[in-house]
C-alpha cells in the first residue's frame, strides 16, 4: 500500500470578511484544502478572488474570522516563529530594500531566518539563479527581472518546507518567466518542498503545478490536476488548457 503523503498545510473552513465588525465583503468564504509534502498547488482566480487574502491568513498577517489553519500539524498562533522558520514568501508586490546591495539584503534575511553556513547558502543560490555577478550591486540598479530572481533567492534561503509564491513573476517577459519557472521546479524537486503558487499567467501554472484550486468570489469553484480540471470544465480535452478554463469559469 502506498504511504500517505505528509500534509504540510491544512486549511479547513477558512472564512475572512472585511468591513465594519466583519460584516461586509466576504473575501474568503469557507474554503478547505490541503497541501502535501512535495506538492505544488496552483492557486487560480480573477483579481479580488481571495487568493492573496488566503496567503496572508496562512502567514498570520491577516486574522481569519473562522476556520482552522494548521501548518506542519501545528496551530499557527501558538507556534508562529517556529512555523515561519520553515516557510518563505515572495510576491511581485514586495521588494527588497533598494539602498542595500544584493549581498547585504540576503545577509540580513539569512540572519532573520537563522540560517547556518550563510555565505555558502547565499553563494549557492546566487549561482543557481545566475546573479552571482550582481552581488555587489545595489538593488535599485537591478532590472525588473533581476529583482524577481533576487526575491526568489530570498524565498529559497531557508530551504523552506512550504513556499508561498504570490504572482512572483507578474509583468516579467516570457524569457525571464521561463528561466524562473525552471529554476523553481529544479529547487522544488531537489529540496522536496511544497509550494502554493498564484499567477494570472496560465502557462506558468501548467508548467509548475501538480494540482489546482480555482477560487472565485472567495469560494473554491473547481479543483484537480490541470488536465482533470480542463476535462471537467471544457469536456473532451486531451491537453491542459487553463486559459480557456479560467475564461469559462470567470464568465459563467
Amino acid at each position, binding site marked *: 500500500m502506498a504511504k500517505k503523503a505528509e500534509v504540510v498545510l491544512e486549511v479547513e473552513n477558512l472564512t475572512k470578511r472585511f468591513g465594519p465588525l*466583519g460584516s461586509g465583503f466576504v473575501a474568503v468564504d469557507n474554503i478547505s484544502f490541503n497541501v502535501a509534502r512535495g506538492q505544488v498547488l496552483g492557486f487560480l482566480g480573477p483579481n479580488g478572488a481571495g487568493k492573496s487574502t488566503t496567503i496572508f491568513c496562512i502567514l498570520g498577517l491577516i486574522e481569519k474570522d473562522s476556520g482552522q489553519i494548521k501548518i506542519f500539524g501545528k496551530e499557527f498562533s501558538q507556534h*508562529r516563529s517556529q512555523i*515561519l*522558520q520553515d516557510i518563505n514568501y515572495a510576491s511581485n*508586490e514586495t*521588494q*527588497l530594500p533598494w*539602498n542595500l546591495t544584493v549581498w*547585504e539584503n540576503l545577509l540580513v534575511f*539569512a540572519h532573520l531566518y537563522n540560517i547556518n553556513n550563510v555565505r555558502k547558502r547565499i553563494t549557492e543560490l546566487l549561482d543557481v539563479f545566475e546573479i552571482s555577478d550582481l552581488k555587489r550591486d545595489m538593488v535599485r540598479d537591478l532590472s525588473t527581472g533581476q529583482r524577481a530572481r533576487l526575491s526568489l533567492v530570498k524565498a529559497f534561503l531557508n530551504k523552506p518546507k512550504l513556499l508561498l509564491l504570490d504572482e512572483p513573476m507578474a509583468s516579467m517577459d516570457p524569457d525571464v518567466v521561463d528561466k524562473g519557472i525552471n529554476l523553481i521546479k529544479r529547487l522544488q524537486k531537489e529540496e522536496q518542498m511544497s509550494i502554493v503558487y498564484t499567477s494570472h499567467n496560465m502557462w506558468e501554472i501548467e508548467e509548475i503545478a501538480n494540482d489546482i484550486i480555482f477560487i472565485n468570489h472567495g469560494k473554491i469553484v473547481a479543483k484537480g490536476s490541470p488536465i482533470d480540471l480542463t476535462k471537467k470544465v471544457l469536456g473532451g480535452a486531451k491537453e491542459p488548457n487553463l486559459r480557456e478554463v479560467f475564461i469559462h469559469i470567470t464568465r459563467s
Partner: protein
Amino acid sequence: MNPRRIHAIVLRHYFLSIHQMERFFDAFLYPVLVLLLWGFLSTYIGSIKSSGLIAFLLGGLILWVIFERVNTDLGLSFMYDVWERNIINVLSSPITFVEFIAGLVIVGLSKIVFSFILMAVMASIFYNFHITTLGFSLALFAINLIIFAWSFGIFNLALIFRFGHSIGPITWILPFLLQPFSAVFYPITVLPEFFQRVAWFLPISHVFEGMRGVLSSHEFDYNQFFVALILNLIYFGVSIAFFYLTLVGVKKSGRLVKLI
C-alpha cells in the same frame, strides 16, 4: 527572543547608513546645527541676562535632542521598510514584533550615543558648557527621557499601522507637539495654569525641571525623578497595550498588509 534576528535588523540599518548619507546626517548634522543655533542664541541672551541661562538652555537642548532623536528614529527606521515595500518580507519572517522593535531600539540608541558625544564636545569647546557637570544625574535623566521616547515611538508605530503611509510624517511632528509643555527651556511655572497641569503629567517636564535644579543648586531632586519614572512606567504600559490592540485590529481589518 532570538538575538540573531535582532542583529539582522541592526545589520539592515547599518548597511542602510553606509549607503544613504542622510541616515548619517540625521545623527550628525541635525544635532550640530541646533547646537550652533541655540548656542549662539544662549550666548547672546546670557550676555544681557544671567550666566546660568546658557547652561539652562544648552542643557535643555541636549537633553531634548536625546528624547526627540530616540523617538523619531524608531518611527523612521520602521518607515524605511514601509517605503521600500520590504515590510511584508520582514513580517512574514520568524521575527517577532518584540525582536523587531528591539532591533530598532538598538539602532536608535547607538545613533544617540554618537549624537550626544558630539553635542557634548561641541558645547564644551564653543560655549564652555559642560554637560558632564550634571554628573550621575545625567544618566538618570537619560533613563527617563529614553523610556518616554520609546513609549512615544511605540505609540507612533501603532499610528503608522492604523493609518498607513499617510501618517509617516507625523513621526517628525509629534515630539514637537509636546515641546511647549515639556518645560525644556523654561520652568513649568512660566506656563499658564492649565498648561502647567498638562506639564506635570509629562515625564520629560520633570526631567527638565530636575536638570535646572542640578545646575542651579547642585542637588538632585529624587521626587522629580521618581514621579517621572512612575509616569513613564504608566505611559510605557499604555503604549504597549495600544500597540498590541492596534496590531490585533489591523490584522483583523487587513490594514497591515496594505502597508506594502
